[in-house]
């Protein structure tokens, strides 16, 4: 479990990092918090020729609120998201989700940019970005691109980023009036990647969803924005309505089998999450019938 030999460069500026990435292409890897990259290298699952350490690029770090936008730099660590009053006020979904990401030692190093670029389909933060309608800002030799989070994740460990680009930051709309959120995941142990999880952001007016973004994770090759949510918007929710949404969700999802759970179990757990989310967001305990609704 020792990484193969590699060259190491500590990038001095974003421009310098991009130059190195341009020269080496996919023979180079960006090092951010290292919590996913280093284990993969030590297991020799990957053996990059060059490591481009972006840790010193202060411009990639930090949380700023301007008007109706929260901007989070790629190097912002999980622990900083967890303790940020700005995030708690303007994107409380993230505050809640981040406590499910790994353990304190990992949260002290792992970064938002690393998590999004890594794109593990069981990861919490990519799903939150989709739920929050985030914009992901990417820079390459030819300048900056803005990608909607819903378009950014392409598959298991696959994103819209090319090997020659850097993820710079994300922008989130500030949570508005009537905005509520729900986050829950099923993991065998606290801090494990989820078997099934849900990040939800909604608008509720007079006990009715006027907007509902349900993003499931660990049930597909990327975060899944459920179309079934539309069945719950602008309608008075009865157990029958909820049951129809659960059925639609089951048909829409195409989860994988693995050691932790069969596809059938994941589908079942997603329905349980949907029912629990509706019940919690509307404060209607009668709706929580565990996906049997």
């Amino acid at each position, binding site marked *: 479990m020792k990484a*193969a030999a590699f060259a190491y460069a500590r990038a001095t500026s974003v421009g310098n990092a991009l130059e190195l990435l341009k020269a080496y292409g996919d023979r180079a890897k960006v090092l951010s918090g290292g919590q996913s990259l280093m284990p993969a290298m030590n297991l*020799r699952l990957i053996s990059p020729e060059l490591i481009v350490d972006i840790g010193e690029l202060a411009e990639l770090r930090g949380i700023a609120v301007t008007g109706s936008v929260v901007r989070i730099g790629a190097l912002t660590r999980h622990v900083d998201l967890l303790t940020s009053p700005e995030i708690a006020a303007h994107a409380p979904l993230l505050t809640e989700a981040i406590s499910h990401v790994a353990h304190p030692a990992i949260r002290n190093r792992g970064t938002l940019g690393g998590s999004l670029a890594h794109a593990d389909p069981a990861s919490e933060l990519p799903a939150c970005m989709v739920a929050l309608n985030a914009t992901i800002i990417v820079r390459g030799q030819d300048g900056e691109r803005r990608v909607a989070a819903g378009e950014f994740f392409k598959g298991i460990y696959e994103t819209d980023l090319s090997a020659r680009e850097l993820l710079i930051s994300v922008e989130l709309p500030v949570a508005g009036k009537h905005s509520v959120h729900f986050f829950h995941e099923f993991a065998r*142990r606290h801090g*494990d*990647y989820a078997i099934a999880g849900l990040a939800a952001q909604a608008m509720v007016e007079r006990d009715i969803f006027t907007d509902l973004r349900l993003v499931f994770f660990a049930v597909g090759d990327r975060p899944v924005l459920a179309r079934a949510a539309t069945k719950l918007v602008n309608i008075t929710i009865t157990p029958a309505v909820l049951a129809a949404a659960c059925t639609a969700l089951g048909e829409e999802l195409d989860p994988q089998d693995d050691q*932790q*759970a*069969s596809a059938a*179990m994941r589908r079942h757990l997603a329905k*349980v999450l949907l029912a629990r989310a509706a019940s919690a967001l509307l404060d209607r305990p009668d709706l929580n019938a565990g996906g049997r609704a």
Partner: protein
Amino acid sequence: MTITSSNPEILSELDRPNSYIGKSVPRPNLERLMQGRGLYVSDMELPRMGHVVFLRSPHAHARIAGIDAAAARSMPGVIAVVTGKELAAVITPWVGVLSHLKGLKSAPQHALAIDRVCWQGEAVAAIVATSRAVAEDAAEIVRVDYEELEAVTDMRTALDPATPVIHPALGDNLAFERNLDAGEVDAAFAGSDAVVEADFIFGRHTGVTLEPRSVVADWNAAEARLTIYQGTQAPHMVQNIAALHLGLEESQVRVVCKDVGGSFGIKVHIYADEMATYALSKLLRRPIKFVADRVESFNTDIHARDHRCWGRIGVKRDGSITAFEIDDLTGIGPYSMYPRTSAIEANQVVNLVGGPYVTRNYRARARVVFQNKNVMCQYRAVGHPIACSVTEGLVDLAAAKIGMDPVEIRRRNLIADNAYPCASPSGLRFELLSHHAAINKLMTMMDYDALRSEQATLRSNGIYRGIGIASFIEVTNPSAAFYGVGGAKISSQDGVAIRLDAQGSVICQTSITEQGQGSESLTAQIVGSVLGVSMERVRVILGDTDNTPYGGGTWASRGAGIGGEAALQAAKILRRNILDVAAAILQSSPAELDIADNAIVNAADGASRMELRELARIVYFRPDTLPPGVQPELMATRHFVPREYPFAFTNGVQASWLEVDTDTGFVRLLKHWVVEDCGTLINPQLVDEQIRGGVVQGLGAALFEKCVYDERGQLTNANMADYLVPMSGEMPDIDVGHVVSPTSETELGAKGAGEAGTAGAAAAVANAVNDALRPFGAVITEIPLTPQIILTALGRI
């Protein structure tokens, strides 16, 4: 916690005014470990040391057609690449059998595979380089040609005629079979009001140690002597076996074992890669270091508990159990492990099922089969979790069938506390157990009746909680009956040597070992108490075959009971010798004197007569002032081994309180209780820590841990992300209570406590899950109890 000593006059040496016995004093090694001054083998560096990496088979079963290591050999930093054939010139193969396990067979195993690999992870070549990283680089370019062979993976079909025989010379894949038939089993079942049966399935799992297996072997050609630094539980066993297979005398092998980062039975065996490391040092004439990485630990550290056990129980309407019957099947990998063998766990299952109960009718069969998977062998509480889960699962099924409370059925069948000595149907002899006192204490600790009514109230609100109870017995303090009689050179006796130094401090050498469980502490507590010396003045030396008496080490919950007694007896002799000298100096008689607080005192009024420091000064530097004919002996040695009973059985009972989310299949552990009886408690805190740690490993088995193999014999979760060890976030509070029934085989009265927690934890959890699910009519007899299994049993998926 109340402890009453049943024979205080015998315990006189320990009931001294400043006794440390029964006190939770901090361990003496704590500060050293907390300050990072532990002496772990993985930290060791020696001059000219080479690092070995083993190239391991990716196949479960394959012929080795060829190995091409030319490119690797020429890489900078590579010292050698050694194959099985080359290493066989230095080290002989072994066969893991014991003569008292009749019929047990196995095939010769080599330090490195020759011609054929029999499990995924078996080492085929050793790459030695100046660093681990360089050796790993070189390992990547060694080419091995494999011709894949059919892998035997399913234990249920291992004995079918159509299944290939892994070792053709053995004739079949059956390693061992034992049958037992006691009492009148058929008649008892025929006369029962109800008979219930079930298949119990146990996941293969392993002990995950914080420090992996580590060895530094240093062959000194000038002295013709091998020093082995190894994190092991049994240094003298390693010494014996290394010498035997390297063609050396034991005096040519020294084994040093200081701190060990966890063992749990994983480090009490002889592993092929460790043997290869010793041999490589001899072959290459330099120190060689092997530290297993996590992936190879999962693939090569012994696994345990892979059992499928059918069981049946007969019961009368009044709750009396009429008979037990079991048929156990276990797959142990391709070789019986050396030298303790892989038949012990199944043998223990046969021994222990039904053990807490009075019924005399018991029939059992156990079969142990070979497979192309990693080797299985003894891990903490060998066989006990299987036997306890089967027995206690059946008892709960019987209780449910006749509509009786699980506690009540146990009370009606547990052996009475005044029935001892007695024996089990399988022939186990019990000196003194306390099942009823233990269950009574448990009822109070958990407030059983209140918990039952809370359970009923919550159930009507759709919250499903369960209570599970598991009584158990536990093998501790083994005599030679375990291994010695079967021909293994594994000592069941231990020795302790104690001396007073020239300033009146005490140096104590013991053959038991420290794995973090507190051997050092309990030895110092006993010695300090008997001698009247404060613990800070007792220095304990362990883990060095050159510098300790000969003995067994750590296994089968034996250190305190056996090594502790040797320490007590040695300290008594030294105390007498000191008092003899003191009487001569003070012109008194030994009977009028005592030792307390590091000084000779008057026995009658406790008045101080002379510091031990002063006595030591006179003895060592002014012997000319002693009366003629007085020759002080300020060093004493004693050995001890139990002779009357083959094992000192302990007993106890555990309970689990948990909640099942019936929508998701997730189990939340709310509380766990243990009442156990390990006889004299030397250090209650250390005992409680042992119990809790053991319980957590049992809870791991119940809910999380499993080595998942596919049908081709590939271990698919050999990493810490996919193999789920229990973590603190999911663990409940664990309350521990004690009943104290000392063994009268020793003056100390201590029995073992290291494995009791593991013995019954999974059984309690499984019973609690079934109790929670009773309204749904679901019964689950498989562990780990994963959400997938629970949801399936509930018909939700």
